[in-house]
C-alpha cells in the first residue's frame, strides 16, 4: 500500500517528467505524439474532475440550505442556476447558436430557383446539409477504395418568395431533424436586416442565457476593475519619497502620453519633434519608458521565474519535493 501511495506516483512522475522534458529535443513524430497525447489525457482527467468540482459546490450549498444558515436562499439559487443552465445546455446540445450555413461539417447547397415562363424569379430555396457522422467514421475504418458519397441530411431550409417586381414577399425558415421531421417552421420578419441571409444561426436557449445573463455579470465585475485601479493608483502615486515621486512622474508621463490630445499639444503647440536629431514625439517617450526600463525590470523578474520553474520541476521530477502527493515523507 505504501508503494502504491508513495513510490508508484513518484515513478510515474519521474517517467512522464523525463519523457516530456526530452520530447522537446526529439523532433520525430513520436515526440510530438507524446506531447499531444499527454495533453489529451489531461483533458480527459479534467472532465472527470469537473464532477469533483460539482460535488464540492453542491455539498457546500446543500449544507447551507439544509441548515437554513443566513443567506441560504442564495445557495438555493445556485441549484436553480445549475438546473437551468444544464437543462438549456443539454437541450441546445451545448451549442450557443442554431446551425449556421457555413459551419465545420455543414454544406450550403446551391440555391434552387423557381421562375415563371418569362424568367422572373418567384421562389428561391437555400438549404444546408450535414454529413451523418456515424457513416463517415465507418467508411474510414473500412477504407474502401472508392468510398461512396457520404450520406447527408437536410438541417435547415430557407425559402424566399418574390413578387413579380422583385420585392421579397415572404421568407420561411424550416429546421429538420435527422429523420427528416420538421422541428421548426416559421416566417422571418423580412423588414429586419439580414432576414434573407441564408440560415444564420440564432441564439439557442443556452446561448441566450450565456449572452444575456452570464456575459453582463462578467462584464460588470470586469468594469469594476476600472474603479479599483483608480483607487490603487491613488494610493501608489502618493509622492512620499524620492522613489515614489519617480514612480508618480513616470506613471503620469505614460498615462498622459497615451492620450492623443497630449501628443497634439506636444508636437503642435510646443512644436517639439526632435532633440539633437533624435525623434522625440510623445509616443516615443512613452515607447522608450515601456520598452527599455520597464522591459528590463520585467526580464529580470522573468529570469528568476524561469530558474524557479526549472528548479521546482526538477525537484518534482526527481522526487525531492513530494508534498503535492499529500504531505511530506
Amino acid at each position: 500500500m505504501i508503494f502504491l501511495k508513495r513510490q508508484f506516483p513518484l515513478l510515474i512522475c519521474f517517467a512522464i517528467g523525463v519523457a516530456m522534458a526530452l520530447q522537446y529535443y526529439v523532433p520525430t513524430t513520436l515526440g510530438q505524439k507524446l506531447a499531444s497525447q499527454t495533453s489529451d489525457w489531461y483533458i480527459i482527467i479534467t472532465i472527470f474532475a469537473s464532477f469533483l468540482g460539482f460535488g464540492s459546490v453542491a455539498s457546500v450549498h446543500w449544507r447551507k440550505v439544509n441548515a437554513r444558515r443566513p443567506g441560504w436562499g442564495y445557495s438555493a439559487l445556485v441549484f436553480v442556476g445549475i438546473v437551468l443552465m444544464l437543462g438549456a445546455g443539454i437541450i441546445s446540445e451545448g451549442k450557443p447558436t442554431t446551425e449556421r450555413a457555413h459551419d465545420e461539417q455543414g454544406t450550403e447547397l446551391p440555391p434552387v430557383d423557381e421562375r415563371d415562363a418569362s424568367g422572373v424569379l418567384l421562389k428561391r430555396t437555400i438549404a444546408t446539409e450535414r454529413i451523418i457522422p456515424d457513416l463517415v467514421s465507418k467508411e474510414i475504418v473500412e477504407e474502401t477504395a472508392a468510398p461512396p458519397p457520404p450520406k447527408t441530411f437536410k438541417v435547415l431550409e430557407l425559402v424566399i418568395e418574390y413578387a413579380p417586381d422583385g420585392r421579397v414577399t415572404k421568407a420561411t425558415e424550416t429546421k429538420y431533424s435527422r429523420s427528416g421531421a420538421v422541428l421548426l417552421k416559421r416566417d422571418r420578419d423580412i423588414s429586419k436586416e439580414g432576414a434573407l441571409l441564408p440560415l444564420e444561426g440564432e441564439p439557442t436557449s443556452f446561448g441566450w442565457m450565456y449572452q444575456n445573463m452570464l456575459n453582463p455579470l462578467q462584464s460588470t465585475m470586469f468594469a469594476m476593475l476600472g474603479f479599483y485601479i483608480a483607487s490603487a493608483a491613488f494610493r501608489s502615486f502618493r509622492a512620499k519619497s524620492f522613489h515614489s515621486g519617480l514612480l508618480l512622474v513616470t506613471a503620469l508621463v505614460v498615462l498622459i502620453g497615451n492620450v492623443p490630445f497630449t501628443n497634439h499639444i506636444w508636437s503642435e503647440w510646443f512644436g517639439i519633434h526632435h532633440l539633437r536629431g533624435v525623434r522625440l514625439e510623445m509616443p516615443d517617450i512613452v515607447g522608450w519608458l515601456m520598452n527599455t526600463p520597464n522591459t528590463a525590470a520585467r526580464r529580470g523578474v522573468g529570469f528568476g521565474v524561469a530558474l524557479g520553474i526549472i528548479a521546482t520541476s526538477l525537484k518534482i521530477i526527481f522526487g525531492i519535493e513530494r508534498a503535492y502527493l499529500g504531505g511530506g515523507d
Partner: protein
Amino acid sequence: MRLAATLLILAACAAAASAQESGALAPPLDLRIEDSGEDNGVGIDVTWRRMEYDAKATYTVLVALAKDGPWHEAAKEPGAGGVKADEPLPWWAWSSDLDTRLIRVTKRDSLAGPQPLLPEENPATKFRAKTPEYWWKVVVATEDGLRWESQPVQVTPTGNFFAWSKLNTFLYMGAFTGILVVYIGVARKRTLWIRRIAGLDAVDEAVGRATEMGKPVYYMTGRDTITTVSTVAATLILGEIAKKVAAYDTQLKVPHTDAIVMAVCQEITREAYISAGRPDAFREDSNFFVTDDQFGYTAAVDGMMVREKPAACFYMGYYYAESLLLAETGASTGAIQIAGTDADAQLPFFFTACDYTLIGEELYAAGAYLSKEPVLVGTLRGQDIGKAVLLFMILIGAVLTTLGQWGGLGMSSFVRSVVELFKAY
C-alpha cells in the same frame, strides 16, 4: 544515416562539356539532395553553389515513387531564391553559407503527385504505412530556353532523434541540474544560509493574528491549472501554511477555481494537519470549489471576504485581471495580505494592495523557505548560483553586443556566434 542518405550529384565534367555543346546548361556545382535535419521525416533539402545563370533560372524539384517515374513537381523556385544562411539555425547545427542556395521541400502536401511525402496515419490502426522509397531529380531551366536535368537519386526523408539546434539549452539544463544536485549534497552536510524574505517571515504574524481575532485565513492558489508550475508552487506553500494554521487552531478557507487543484490541495491540507498533530481539526470542506469562471470566482470570493472579514489573505500562484479585485477587497476588510506571483503584469496590483509581495522566483522559493528542509534549501542556493551565472552571462553579452554593434573591431560574426549560443531554437 544522414550522410548515407546524402548523394552528391556532381555531373561528370565530360558529360557537362558535351551538354554545353548541345545547348544545355552547365550543371549546378555541389548539387545535393538530402534529408532535412531536425524534422519528423517530412522534408528534404536541395542545395547547390551559387551559379552565374541563377538570376534567370528556375529550379524545379521533381519526385517519384520509382526511378523511372512518373515524376511530380514537388517545388519550383527561382534560382535567385533563398540561401542556406536564411535558415534561422545556429552555427553548430547548420553551416550558414551565403553562397549556397537552398530549396526546402517540407510540406507533406507539397507534392502534386498521387501520394503525399509522408504516408498518412491510418485512423483505425493509428499506424503509418511504411515510408516508400522516393526518387528525386532537379531540373534547371533558364529564360533563354537552356535546360539541365540531374540524374534521379533516391533519398527517403527520415525523422531525426535529436534537434541539434537545441543542444545549447540541453547543456544549460544539464549544467543547472548539476548545480542543484551539488548544492543539495552540500545542504545535507551543513546548514546553508539563505537570505530573508520578509513576506514569508510575516506568515507567522498573519496566522497568529487570525488566531487572536478568531477570524479565518483565506488562501488562494491562483487561476491556473495544476499543469502550471506556479500553481504547484502555490499548493506546496499551502502545505506549510496549513501546518501553522493547524498548530494555531485557526480556520483555513481555500476557495478553488480548478477541481484538480482542489483535490490536490485537499490531500496536502489533510497531511499538513496530520503532521501538525491535529488531524481532528481538519475539515474536508476547508478546500472547496467555487466556479471555473474568472469573474464568477472573483465575485464569490469577494463576497465571502466582505461577509467574513478574514484576518489574513494569501494570494499565491498565477493571477489575471482578478488580482486587483481580490486584493483590494481583501485590503478593504483590514486583512493582512501576502501575495506571491510570477505574473509580472499583476505584480504592481499586489504591491499596491498587499502588505507583502513575493516577486517571481520568491514564489518558488517559499515552500523550501518555510519548510527549512535542508534538501529543499539546497535547491534554493542552487537557484541563486544559477541566477549569478545568468547575471554574469548578461554582462558578458552586453559587452560583446556593444562591441559587435560598434563594428570597428570586426567582431560582428564572432558576436553573432556568441549570441547564438544563448538563443533558444
